[in-house]
């Protein structure tokens, strides 16, 4: 099993949800984050004092999937999230050693879905 973590543009979330749905990935966890990368920020002025804002709003997805689902999921995320502009984000894949469904106690592949 793998744990896929993706950082995307907030306004792409609906599109990503849709493409994941089409790829039969129905379960995700979403949280928000601030991202710092190549994408350039913007000038903020408050009462005449300027500040370079480079922590930009991002959305963070976590998806636990079975190994055979990894590529499909990655593809789906890219489909939904890509605008071909700097700032589109990243996908990180780590090894998921165990997954437990709290309700039933099921483990492993069973618990993923």
């Amino acid at each position: 099993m793998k744990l896929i973590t993706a950082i995307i543009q907030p306004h792409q979330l609906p599109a990503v949800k849709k493409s994941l749905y089409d790829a039969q990935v129905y379960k995700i966890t979403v949280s928000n984050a601030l991202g710092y990368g190549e994408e350039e920020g913007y000038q903020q002025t408050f009462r005449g004092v300027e500040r370079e804002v480079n922590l930009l709003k991002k959305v963070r997805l976590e998806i636990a999937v079975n190994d055979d689902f990894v590529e499909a999921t990655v593809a789906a995320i890219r489909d939904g999230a890509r605008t071909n502009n700097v700032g589109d984000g990243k996908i990180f894949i780590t090894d998921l050693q165990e997954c437990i469904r709290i309700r039933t106690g099921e483990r492993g592949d069973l618990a993923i879905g």
Partner: protein
Amino acid sequence: MRKKALLSTLVVFMAFTGPLQAADTSDLWVALDTLWVLIAAFMVFFMQAGFGMVEAGLIRSKNAGNILMKNMMDFCMASLGFFICGYALMFGGEGPFLGSQGWLLMNVESPVGIPLHAFWMFQAAFCGAAATIVAGGMAERMRFVAYLMYSFVISAVVYPIVGHWIWGGGWLAGLGFYDFAGSTVVHAVGGFTALVGTILLKPRTGNFNSDGSPNSIGGHNMPLVSLGVFILWFGWFGFNGGSALGMGDPELVARIVINTNLAAGAGAIAAMFTAWAKFGKPDLALSFNGALAGLVAITAPCAVVTPGSAIYIGMLGGILCVYGVHWLDRFGVDDPIGAVPVHAFNGVWGTLAVGLFGQSVLGSPQNGVFYGGGLSQLGIQALGAVIVAFFVMGSMWLVFKTIDALVGLRVSEVEELRGLDIGEHGMESYSGFQIFSTE
């Protein structure tokens, strides 16, 4: 105080004389009427805060600062614009279409029994209200600089012209068109401007799905909306009551006030139940809009109908508002806060209501349909409302097109996504608060 003391002595002295005596009580009437009109003006001014809170609360946080800025600055623009030429166009003489004296309030007499400056303040606050109604309808995508230009034009020219026709002794007044406190003059003008504006601007990105079905973009702060509605309701007592321009007839002012209150209450209740029946839940935004709808609807007839009629007028206003919101969604018109259903549709409804429920014993030019007056008053009201609607939409279409050509009406899509607060003002309304924006 000097003046005050002087007066008292005057009093004592005059006590022994007849005519002057009279002068003395008429001084009191002027002072009393001025006090009421000024206080009413303050209350109408305060409505500006109400509009701001409602508009900001019903849109997304990323654009809240921008609309609050528009709301603040349009009143400032209106203050100057109505001072420089607006007042002159509206009240500077009896011409059928335009007034023409009193630029900068110079060389002009007060047309009423209170000081010119007091009368101006009251009218200027009305002008500001007409201007700010539009901010909500065009919210979340209109450029700030374009809004500044628009707000100057409407308050310096367009609003005063319509105002002159109806309140400045213009041709509609001549026809016997009756709009006591401005369902047409203020609300229809603002509402129809919002309509043409939002159509020209096109909907917000993502507000309609590809299949044309509407997406709901939730308001980010309902407490602000509720506060705003209460402030508006509060201010409306001055808006309508103050339009008596004095306390000379306490019965009249009292009737206006009770009608205003009952129409608002009935509007909210009717809107709530309509939404409940239609959508399964008592919707906050629609119920609150319903109260405003009732208030707009009673604005024209408040002086010349009975409390009972006020309840009907308000109820219908509330229902009309809910359907209006629905229709606009259906027709793909994106009016983020419901400015059109509340101010345009109900502005017209209130104007017509004079022709239905108005009573000549209460001061209406003729009895309305339900009081045996036949259709004649209703006809005049309809005529006036329609012509004003077309005049406003036509002229504002021109204005918006010109502004679009000059500076552009709409912000870039990137800016829209990121929010106008950042794009237009380089700040966030809730800097420090974390906001989860999935639209």
